[in-house]
């Protein structure tokens, strides 16, 4: 069956898309005719209309993939995008999962086209559908996740990205996917100003196991430094589970940011500004200038927050002096902003020019709070159980037992044999 004609393939598809076994058979046939399809890519467009994507998904997929991998077809077909969107919306999920790489490659060419036409927003909804169909469970990370987030970033639709980001990911096929996914996730969270989540995402990137340094980790580390400063005022040390590659090499590539962090620690505004000025081009070329400006304004906030720990009431003039602001008016603006953002609890008395700081009014007595605590407890218990079952699973794994068995001491006859002999 060397060079089956396209018509024959189409006939097979239409015939064998009924039950599970038929589809499996079809799959084998299709794999054999891949080359034929590719060579005839230009003609495939017409044949696609003969097939119904929802029923003949697998076949449609193969044809579509061959079609879209041909650059000429892509350029010429005005309806290229539309046809892919239609396919994604109507395809059947089980059949797709038989040939995931093909599906991914179709979506990738879709994404490339969308970016080329500079309409990333059009790609968002289809890709989300695609992800949901491709995923076996919502805990799985696919290659499409990072493409999806990239489109959200380009289109500045950060909230759209959130719906995917909120899923907890536990299964990863390709490490590279994770890097990109977390990096883009971090950027989306930064765009939404939820710095805590951004920090978590970026933290995952730099602490992921890696044997060689990659550019994603370096860029992520730069942002990580800036976000850490905004959140906590300092950059934490590498936790001990960070790979040694990362620990040794990340700092050497991100020197201007480390200088910035050190400058921030000393606390004076003028020094920080000076530091930023000296490294301005580097920040700009890394497109981190916006974040750096936020670091600057966070210095004021931190100073003002420290004041809340020491004073009950303080005049605006004193606040301006302590936080190195120029006028009491500026101080008032900053304090007002912080009250609105919920970062401090205070009231401004304009008549006296005084600010009174209050304690956090949260008393942990409301129903809402109780529910929050309750749901947290449940979530954590589920997580713990998951951890426990993973541990159990591991201890029954033959590879693990073999390894343990080999390393146990040999000649202690009195010891209880912890590993059955068949694993040695």
């Amino acid at each position: 069956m060397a060079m089956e004609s396209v018509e024959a393939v189409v006939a097979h598809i239409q015939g064998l898309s009924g039950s599970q076994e038929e589809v499996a058979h079809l799959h084998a046939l299709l794999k054999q005719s891949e080359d034929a399809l590719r060579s005839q890519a230009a003609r495939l467009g017409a044949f696609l209309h003969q097939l119904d994507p929802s029923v003949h998904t697998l076949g449609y997929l193969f044809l579509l993939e061959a079609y879209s991998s041909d650059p000429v077809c892509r350029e010429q077909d005005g309806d290229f995008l539309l046809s892919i969107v239609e396919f994604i919306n109507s395809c059947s999920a089980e059949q797709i999962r038989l040939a995931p790489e093909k599906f991914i490659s179709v979506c990738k060419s879709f994404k490339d086209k969308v970016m080329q036409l500079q309409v990333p927003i059009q790609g968002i909804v289809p890709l989300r559908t695609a992800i949901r169909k491709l995923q076996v469970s919502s805990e799985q990370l696919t290659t499409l996740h990072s493409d999806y987030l990239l489109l959200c970033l380009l289109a500045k639709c950060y909230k759209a990205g959130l719906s995917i980001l909120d899923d907890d990911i536990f299964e990863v096929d390709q490490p590279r996917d994770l890097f990109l996914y977390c990096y883009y996730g971090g950027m989306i969270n930064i765009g939404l100003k939820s710095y805590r989540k951004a920090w978590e995402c970026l933290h995952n990137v730099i602490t992921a196991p890696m044997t060689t340094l990659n550019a994603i980790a370096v860029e992520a580390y730069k942002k990580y430094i800036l976000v850490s400063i905004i959140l906590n005022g300092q950059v934490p040390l590498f936790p001990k589970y960070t790979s040694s590659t990362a620990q040794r090499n990340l700092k050497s590539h991100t020197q201007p940011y480390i200088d910035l962090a050190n400058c921030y620690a000393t606390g004076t505004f003028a020094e920080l500004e000076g530091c930023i000025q000296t490294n301005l081009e580097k920040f700009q070329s890394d497109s981190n200038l916006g974040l750096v400006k936020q670091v600057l304004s966070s210095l004021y906030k931190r100073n003002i927050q420290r004041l809340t720990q020491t004073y009950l009431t303080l005049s605006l003039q004193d606040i301006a002096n302590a936080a190195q602001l120029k006028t009491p008016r500026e101080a008032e603006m900053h304090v007002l902003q912080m009250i609105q953002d919920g970062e401090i609890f205070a009231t401004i008395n304009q008549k006296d020019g005084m600010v009174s700081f209050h304690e956090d009014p949260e008393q942990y007595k409301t129903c809402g709070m109780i529910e929050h605590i309750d749901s947290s407890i449940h979530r954590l218990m589920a997580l713990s159980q998951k951890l426990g079952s993973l541990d159990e699973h591991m201890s029954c794994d033959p590879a693990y037992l073999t390894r343990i068995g080999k390393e146990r001491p040999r000649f202690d006859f009195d010891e209880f044999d912890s590993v059955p002999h068949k694993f040695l």
Partner: protein
Amino acid sequence: MEGDDEGTFAAATGYEAMYANGDAGDDPRLPPTPRSGKAAVGGGGDLMDVEAYAALYTGRTKVARLLFIAERCGNEGMQLEAFRLAHDEIKKGEDSHLYREAMAKIGDRLGPRYAIDQVWADAVDRRAEVRKEKLENELNIYKTNLIKESIRMGFNDLADFFYAHGQLGDAFKNFVRTRDYCTTSKHIIHMCLNVILVSIELSQFMHVSNYVSKAEQTPEQLDPVTHSKLRCAAGLAHLETKKYKLAARKFLETGHELGNNYTEVIAPQDVAIYGGLCALASFDRTELKNKVIDNINFRNFLELVPEVRELINDFYASRYASCLEYLENLKPNLLLDIHLHDHVETLYTEIRHKAIIQYTIPFISVDLHTMAGAFKTNVAGLEKELEALITDNQIQARIDSHNKILYARHADQRNATFQRVLHTGVEFERDVRAMLVRANLIKHECITRAARKP
């Protein structure tokens, strides 16, 4: 201890005013100082009686202290006085290096009577050469005879010679060498005390601590004087290494038998001052009461420096203004003390902070004006100090800057617990999730690696 020695007693109060020594016309360069009221006793702090101070000490430490005073004090009159006394003291000894050094510093400011006496210096050097040869020969003879006791004596004599001649390094080495030839505990103690003496001069306080512990480990019971000497030395070592609490404890344990037996290192007034200040800076209230105020033994020392006794009592009784005033009056003299000078600032800040903290403890609210009055500062300065202490978490309070009141603030345990719980939950979740992802990644890596293996 009080009426021990007329000169000593006079010198005890001679720190601050001239009155004890009689007329101020003795030395016309120093104006007379008034003697009125207890707090004003130290009014003439700068005009320390150098002669009386020097009379408290003997040996090399006397010269070192005098030279130090001459360098540090701003007063020309005092400086010349110190130089003169140093010169006289050096001439009594055998150290020509020190003589030359001192004369270089003095120049010709003391007049023609005190010009550099090259003849004397050369004579001393020649005598030293001769003696050194003699001692070394004797030592060699003893070594061939292999009599432990004479070898030990030989080393000791050589070390004493070096010490007198100012070669402290060699003296140290030789004292240490006697260790192998010590047979009785007495010898060991003798050796230790000598090493301690030289180490203090060399400012090597590690050795001081080591040898103090060595001396204390001897099986024989130490006589009280030696015991006190060792305590003082240990206290000094701790002081120099900034361990003020330990230093205070050692000084407080010094027995009054010390008397004037250790004047080649420390005077009993010093024990009182060092011990009192370190205790005040590092002890809490109970310890202060038990170990200092109720300490009968230490009371003997405190009698020698009534200011320290008064200031400790004032601190304990919360009369802060008076206490701080005594401290201020003592300060100029303490800055001239070779052991204490670079610790004075730290100790003073500590004491001041302790005073402020102690002041605020009993109250729910404190008016900053009254407090500023009690501490003799202005409200703005006080506010700054309080801010620093609150940020350091030494005081649990908040400042109402509008009305200038300090309110005590007790953390709400219940809220704090809830916050901590929620925070821990969030962290746990985050860490476990990240960990599961990482585990998954590593598993995939292992699987791919295993798959690649044939």
